């Protein structure tokens, strides 16, 4: 496609440059704030040009936030959550789109509704589940009378317990369920031409073979997009890690970052050390950018074009 569209090209560059400036402006301000002393950061009018304290602030943030140690934990959790989400939502959407059963829509909605109630609202009962992941099943057994029956018949008291507090499982598992991912794959799977399914069936390929050989290669760009988003999502998780972790060897980076930007009410009026907090933000943004740069290689056009 070689077309000469000089005016449109200029317009394109203008639009993209404008968008880039709009999106990067806050980040620029973060870097600027990270490069000044606190006095300069909170002065009015604020400094809009970088200062010379960046390296000093970065070092202090690194040491104060124990960021080095936290990187490892957070990386493990982020990779776990990302992989879990990409895989789980893929197979769930596959089960919903490519099979004909009456529960398709109910299942989809059951998953979708999880988007509608933030963790803050259900924090107390969710913590109870983290303290014992088998609690829901124990409750089911109790309510259905099975616990009583077994106890009466054999004298054994069923008591299921699995404590997820202070563990990777507890950090990762509750974050793995994802309506967003399932929805995204559903949208994409619905665009897959029916002929592909027919062809696969004619070739005698079962559903799993079809999933692996046809769908996943076709979904590459969407997988890359979802993985990028989910890595960052997990990387920046705050409330859940804060709750389930009291053992600092599992502490996550966003929790540590928030300690660098304390809430005003929790500090007795102390002016937050914005320069250190922003330097911490700059450090913490590092791994996500690596992931973005790495993942964007899969954003390549025209993969579906091979069906000749």
């Amino acid at each position, binding site marked *: *496609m070689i077309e000469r569209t000089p005016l*449109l*090209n200029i317009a*394109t560059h203008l*639009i*993209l440059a404008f*968008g*880039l400036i*709009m*999106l*990067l*402006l*806050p*980040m620029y*301000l973060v870097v600027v704030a990270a490069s000044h002393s606190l006095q300069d950061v909170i002065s009015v*009018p*604020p400094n809009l040009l970088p200062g010379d304290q960046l390296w000093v602030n970065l070092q202090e943030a690194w040491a104060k936030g124990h960021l080095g140690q936290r990187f490892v934990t957070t990386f493990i959790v982020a990779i776990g959550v990302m992989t879990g989400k990409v895989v789980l939502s893929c197979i*769930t959407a596959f089960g*919903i789109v*490519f*099979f*004909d059963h009456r529960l398709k829509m109910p*299942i989809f909605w059951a998953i979708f509704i*999880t*988007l*509608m*109630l*933030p963790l*803050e*609202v*259900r924090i107390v*009962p969710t913590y109870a*589940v983290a303290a014992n992941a088998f609690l829901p099943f124990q*409750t089911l057994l109790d309510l259905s009378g099975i616990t009583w029956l077994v106890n009466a018949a054999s004298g054994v008291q069923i008591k299921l317990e699995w404590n997820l507090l202070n563990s990777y499982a507890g950090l990762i598992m509750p974050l793995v*369920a994802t309506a967003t991912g399932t929805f*995204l794959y559903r*949208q994409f799977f*619905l*665009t897959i031409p*029916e002929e592909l*399914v027919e062809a696969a*069936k004619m070739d005698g390929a*079962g*559903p*799993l073979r079809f999933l692996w050989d046809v769908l996943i290669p076709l979904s590459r760009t*969407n997988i890359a*997009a979802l993985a*990028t988003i989910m890595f960052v999502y997990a*990387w*920046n998780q705050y409330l859940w890690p804060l709750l389930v972790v009291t053992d600092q060897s599992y502490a996550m980076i966003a929790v540590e*970052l928030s300690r660098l930007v304390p809430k005003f009410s929790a500090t007795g009026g102390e002016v937050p050390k914005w320069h250190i*907090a*922003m330097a911490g*933000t700059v450090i913490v*943004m590092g791994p*996500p*950018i690596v992931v*973005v740069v790495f993942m964007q290689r899969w954003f390549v056009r*025209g993969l579906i*074009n091979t069906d000749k």
Partner: protein
Amino acid sequence: MRRAYFKNNWVAALMVAPQLIIVFTFFYFPTSQALYWAFTLEQPWGGGNTWVGFDNFTAILSDSLYWASIWVSVVYAVGSTALAVGMALLLAIFADRQLAGYKLYKIGLIWPYAIAAPAVGLAFRFIFTPGAGLMMFVNQMFPHLWNPVDNGNQAMAMVIIAGAWKQVAYNFIFFLAGLQSIPRALIEAGAMDGARVLRRMRDIQLPLLAPTFFFVLVINITDSFTDSFGIVDTMTAGGPSRATNIMVYKIFNDGFQGLDYSGAAAQSIILMILVIALTFVQFRYIERKVHYT
């Protein structure tokens, strides 16, 4: 829509089971407990509760300020979604032309999603401060024009822009991915038929992007209703005089900070019903216009 399907439903069951188990364990079971509180007055430290039926709901729904809060939430949702989806779509479709510098744009437009929430709050505080930076300039030219401390509409505009900002990067990723899964052959065919760039965008790319667009739209609206208390908490705390008191922020304030579990649970149910209804409407009326294959 009729589709070709695989027959062995036990495979389907196996595929959806893991996610359903996790969702049941970590969402439905705890949520059902929390929602039960909506019909009781629950003591936060677990000393028991009293059944009050629909009292919590009648109290909320007969409160004119609660209806105002619903209105504010709708304004926020529509404003931030329109801004975030519109911006992202524009940027993605032009970025997808892959002119020189494409890689730079791509990374630059995705990266802002990585910035942590407290930093976003501070950055926007710099941007919107009446007495400094950009807005000081505006106020020097038009005295007292910008004053989100007293002016509820301006405070709302501020929250909408900040809320939309991060979502632009998020939406951009999915739009770009969606655009790039469009078969190149279709676009080439359009070009050979003599369709120019803008026309191809309108006639080929946008319609084919519809499934992704629908996804982004639904997610944005849902998110703006349910996940926006952080930005309100750091920027306006619901003020001035309830002008930015969106529903989910009130839930957060009453339940999480104020320990009124029953009131927060009742408000959550109302919010959920509202969002489910909105989503349903979108599936029913907007998805009809989406052509999948």
